[in-house]
């Protein structure tokens, strides 16, 4: 506008400028107005979208709730016979309504075995109360516990107890904690030192309580040191490294490996054997048993770990449950042999097949 040569005078230029400014102002207000309208439309559409999303979510939740059982909904079906290209449909239509099962019929055999097992356990518990001399076969690893603790006391070196890599929700950890309470009681009596490095914080809390109670029961509350039952880490190989370091520095005279172990089983056992400690292992992990057996002095295999609590305490209630378990095992062995005989009878005793892997 300033440099244009089209204007006849300054007034002409100013009036044109004023008209252009007014036009620009009108356009800007028009644009602003349309922008506001569009924004308002967008907000309305967003609200609609949110409502649809919410509706969809409710529907999805409803479908998820009724995924297995579609309540009060009938399914209709017809029977058809197909042979080659020919199809013949039944005239009648049948219907059925789905309903949730309250009992899984396919697990009836489990229920029967469980009830039978419970009955056997209760029977032998009541028998154990009457007859105090229930026989349990000798378990060498558990007989050697006293020897191991005595050795540690004489040498003035600590006892190391490692309870595996699972948490308190595992049966093997509970079994190992039960063994720990017995071992802690004996260590308290001998006034030896116990080290319990822990993998899980919850197990650490339980072990601290168990060891403290064991010392209280043995009449040695002043000997209990909470620092001896400590948390290490929740990482497998960091935990192993720590225990190996403890073994090399503290040189415990007796190592107990009780619980469920993974690949670190051999690392622990080999390091322990290098320090010259007596080692007693117990695990229900059958993949690690082959590593414990050659490297440890005594190994408790599978169920022997669970029986340890009963074996060490000799309580009638616990002994009775072991007896019940053994009788059920006998029943299972009979059933397996019977099944084998029946199956072989069906296939005509094909002995050659016995040597073929499945």
């Amino acid at each position, binding site marked *: 506008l300033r440099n244009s040569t089209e204007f006849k005078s300054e007034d002409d230029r100013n009036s044109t400028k004023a008209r252009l400014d007014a036009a620009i102002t009108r356009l800007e207000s028009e644009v602003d107005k349309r922008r506001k309208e569009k924004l308002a439309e967008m907000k309305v559409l967003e609200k609609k979208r949110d409502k649809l999303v919410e509706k969809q979510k409710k529907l999805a939740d409803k479908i998820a709730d009724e995924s297995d059982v579609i309540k009060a909904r009938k399914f209709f079906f017809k029977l058809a016979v197909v042979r080659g290209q020919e199809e013949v449909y039944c005239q009648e239509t049948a219907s059925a309504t789905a309903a949730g099962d309250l009992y899984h019929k396919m697990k009836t055999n489990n229920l029967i075995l469980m009830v039978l097992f419970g009955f056997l356990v209760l029977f032998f518990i009541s028998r154990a109360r009457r007859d105090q001399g229930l026989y349990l076969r000798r378990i060498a690893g558990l007989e050697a516990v006293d020897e191991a603790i005595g050795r540690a006391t004489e040498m003035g070196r600590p006892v190391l107890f490692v309870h595996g890599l699972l948490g308190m929700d595992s049966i093997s950890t509970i079994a190992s904690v039960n063994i720990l309470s017995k071992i802690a009681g004996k260590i308290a009596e001998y006034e030896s030192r116990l080290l319990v490095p822990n993998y899980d914080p919850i197990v650490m809390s339980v072990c601290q309580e168990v060891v403290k*109670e064991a010392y209280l029961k043995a009449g040695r509350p002043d000997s209990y040191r909470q620092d001896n039952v400590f948390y290490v880490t929740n990482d497998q190989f960091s935990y192993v490294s720590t225990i190996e370091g403890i073994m090399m520095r503290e040189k415990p005279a007796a190592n107990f490996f009780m619980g469920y172990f993974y690949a670190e089983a051999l690392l622990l056992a080999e390091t322990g054997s290098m320090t010259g400690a007596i080692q007693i292992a117990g695990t229900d992990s059958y993949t690690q048993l082959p590593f414990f057996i050659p490297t440890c002095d005594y190994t408790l295999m599978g169920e022997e770990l669970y*029986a340890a609590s009963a074996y060490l305490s000799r309580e009638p209630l616990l002994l009775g449950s072991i007896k019940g378990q053994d009788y059920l095992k006998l029943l*299972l062995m009979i059933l397996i042999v019977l099944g084998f005989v029946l199956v072989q009878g069906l296939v005509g005793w094909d002995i050659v097949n016995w040597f073929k892997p499945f």
Partner: protein
Amino acid sequence: MVFWKRTFPLVIAFVMGIVMMVRYFVPHQRSEDLYTLMSDWLIIIAGFAFFIGMFNLLGAHFAKVRRGVPGWGYSTVVILAAAATIFLGLMRDIEYSISSLIGTEINFISSMGVWENIEGGSPFDWVYQYFQVPLSATVFSILAFFIVSAAYRTFRARSTEATILLITAMIVMIGRVPIGSLIWSGIPDFQEWIMAVPNLAAKRGILIGVCLGSVATSLRIIFGIERAYLGGAE
């Protein structure tokens, strides 16, 4: 006090044991929902329990440093490493918290623009990838040498059983490498039979015993017969 330490935990163990036992036989959706809920609660409790472990760990190592016991240097390393890793993992959150506390936005960490707490590419992830993973792999690799030393000590013909073990182990080891088939073509099949028939039979026998033992121990815990895990006092 005895009620809260002894009786109440036994009641909880009994009730929850029976509930979860019954749940196993009920295929209804509500039963599955209950199982999912219990599993979620377990994860939450484990998450809180981690703080207990952390306090115990740091407390024990601080005590060692304070008392100057032999090996306190290692404890210093543990404390510094834990502090550094926690800081790296929470850097961004610390920055956000300070910003909201003082009312002024701080962008020192954010301006670096590289990372978000523990995601890939963050300093925390770098520490995990270049410290934790190689160290774990190193410790795991020692297993190979320990297997050799354990095998050297074990495979000796001291008794009949040890001789059988030695012969079987040799057949299995040779059968699993190419040279076995070169020595005799039947060795790989024979080692496969050893692993698939007698070995598997023994494994299943142990497994049956373990499962029965688990059931018996579980029943003892549910019915309060086994109480040593509560603290040992009768």
